[in-house]
């Protein structure tokens, strides 16, 4: 009698433990997503904005049931802004963590170095920011890009010059001597040719310079109608401050993306930032579902402001989650196939990976013109999304109040 009870107890216990093990197994099995970002080093500022955006998006997705009941687990790899570190970071994510999909990729140089690794191991890589054109021009079938390539950043500038600033005939081009800067400046040169703009001065500079006066002096001597700059935030701020010091008065100051849209730019440059135009990929006032909500939520949660880089990362997380949900199985191959069929609306705009020109699996998006007016970044072009009318031409420094 005692024996039977004992046996029955053992059986029940065994069954119970099976259940527990099984349910624990389900709960513990997360979907790992690798994220490559610069978390330390000089680009860490943007890396942080993007990391927080990824985390925020993942939390939202997990709160709504995750990927078919499984929670998303983000594995961040710090690329420190260096291509070789980025490469080994991706290798680590693939070989050791066995992630089915990788996303992130901030600087162009790092992304360009990391993409071939993902392609070689056949693990899909959804790029959110790295924008050098050639990354999606190599026919890689495991590389997807959400943000437009660097050459398309100035599209809105082009239409602004055609639509409003028709009397701009000459330009000066200043760019950071990096993969992104060179790529952007080259495409601006081509656009300028198409628009009949004459480029009087073209100067690269090294990021982190203290004194831009030598090149600005040259620009002043050339007296162009427009100055086009491709710079990160603090170089951008110094360029504008020193332009003001030298009283350079073109009709237009235009920043080609990157640093000119950040709140830090306006705060550190002070009144020297006023009137500066910038091409941007995103502002929170755009009519995309969740754009405003993302911006407000980010500000509330982290107490700091976000900008287009963050929106890219936030959208990338949703795109990845969407593909994981639709994939037949959570393997790199199936996730890749699901990604290729992506067609969704995100806070960053519609996402669909298409092939055009030389590019493959590239998302095609509009770009916008914004202008700093009294310390506020206003969308001014195209008119359909404008929050304020543009101020053109920019008033000369000594006539400003």
């Amino acid at each position, binding site marked *: 009698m005692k024996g039977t009870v004992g046996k029955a107890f053992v059986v029940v216990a065994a069954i119970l433990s099976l259940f527990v093990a099984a349910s624990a197994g389900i709960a513990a099995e997360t979907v790992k997503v690798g994220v490559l970002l610069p978390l*330390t*080093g*000089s680009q*860490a*500022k943007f*890396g*942080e904005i993007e990391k927080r955006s990824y985390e925020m998006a993942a939390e939202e997705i997990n709160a709504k049931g995750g990927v078919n009941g499984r929670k998303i687990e983000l594995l961040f790899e710090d690329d420190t802004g260096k291509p070789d570190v980025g490469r080994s970071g991706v290798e680590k994510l693939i070989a050791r963590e066995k992630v089915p999909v990788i996303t992130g990729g901030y600087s162009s140089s790092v992304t360009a170095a990391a993409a071939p690794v993902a392609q070689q191991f056949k693990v899909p890589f959804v790029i959110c920011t790295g924008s050098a054109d050639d990354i999606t021009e190599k026919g890689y079938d495991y590389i997807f890009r959400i943000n437009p390539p660097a050459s398309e950043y100035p599209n809105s500038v082009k239409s602004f010059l055609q639509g409003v600033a028709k009397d701009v005939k000459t330009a000066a081009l200043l760019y950071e*001597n990096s993969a992104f800067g060179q790529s952007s400046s080259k495409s601006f040169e081509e656009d300028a040719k198409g628009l009949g703009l004459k480029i009087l001065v073209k*100067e*690269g*500079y*090294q990021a*982190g*310079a*203290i*004194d*831009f*006066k*030598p*090149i600005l*002096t*040259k620009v002043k*001597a050339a007296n162009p109608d427009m100055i086009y700059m491709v710079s990160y*935030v*603090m170089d951008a*701020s*110094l360029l504008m*401050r*020193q332009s*003001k*010091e*030298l*009283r350079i008065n073109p009709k237009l100051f235009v920043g080609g993306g990157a640093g000119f849209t950040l709140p*830090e730019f306006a*705060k*550190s440059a*002070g*009144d*020297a930032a006023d009137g500066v135009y910038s091409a941007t990929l995103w502002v929170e006032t755009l009519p995309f579902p969740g754009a405003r909500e993302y911006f407000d939520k980010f500000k509330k949660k982290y107490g700091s402001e976000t900008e287009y880089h963050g929106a890219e990362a936030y959208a990338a997380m949703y795109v990845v989650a969407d593909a994981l949900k639709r994939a037949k199985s959570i393997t790199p191959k199936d996730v890749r196939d699901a990604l290729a069929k992506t067609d969704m609306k995100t806070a960053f705009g519609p996402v669909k990976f298409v092939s055009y020109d030389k590019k493959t699996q590239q998302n095609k998006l509009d770009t916008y013109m914004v202008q700093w007016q009294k310390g506020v970044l206003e969308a001014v072009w195209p008119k359909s999304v404008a929050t304020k009318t543009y101020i053109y031409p920019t008033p000369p420094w000594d006539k400003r109040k």
Partner: protein
Amino acid sequence: MDVFLQTLVAGILKGGLYALIGIGMTLIMGVMGIINLAHGQLMMLAMYVTFVLNTMGVDPYIALFVAMPLLFLLGVTIQKFLLNPLIKADTILPENQVLMTVGIGMVLTEIVRFIFSSDYKYITTSYSNQTFYLGNISFSSALTIAFGIAIAFTVAMFFFLLKTDLGRSIRATAQDKDAATLMGVNTGRITVITFGLGAGLVAAAGCLLAPVYYIFPDLGGPFTAKAFIITILGGLGSTVGAIFGGVTLGLAESMGATYFGMEYEDIIGLTIFVLVLLFLPGGFKRLTKI
């Protein structure tokens, strides 16, 4: 002509600041025979001190009088408790002190990142964006003031080394440590004071740079490299050499930026560095003999 003059002015103003950055390193180099590879990081720390004081409403030029003593104390502590113990261990070569400074630099950077995060900080003062004109040439007010203060410090340093007892002891230690010890100079104390002075001087440079530049934890590295170039240019351990080295580097960068292209700024500095090593191995010190 305007372009040339403007470039010249920009180069000299920047050079004054470079001299102040270089002079601290050259002092340490002369006395201890080691390159302090945490030099730029010490400057970064001083800039954060300036930043914190500025948020409390203290002007960067007044913050200088807080940052300098603070960094002096830090320098003294580093030399006394982190670098000197390495000299006492027999098997350890002087290179190990250099490695130690690299480590100190990293620790300082990461501590600052931990406290302030990687965000860019900046100090905006009423004179940050101010300029005055002489003819057609613009002078940035902040950089001109910085130049003046930098020159004042450098000259003061020069006379301190030349005329005071402590200065003489420092020079004696730099020239021949053993002989100085035999003459009754407490060389251990001298090294500690020298490191403190070096840190204090670079702190001054940081305070002067803060209103015109920006502040982030990784700012140290490039400035350590610049200080190193200046030290080699000037001749190891030479104060006057450091002034020449700083101004030369500033001028070379500006002239290079105007006439070759600003993207070559660093290449120009390093090219001069190599040329000096090849053709004037003692640096400018060889020409001045001080």
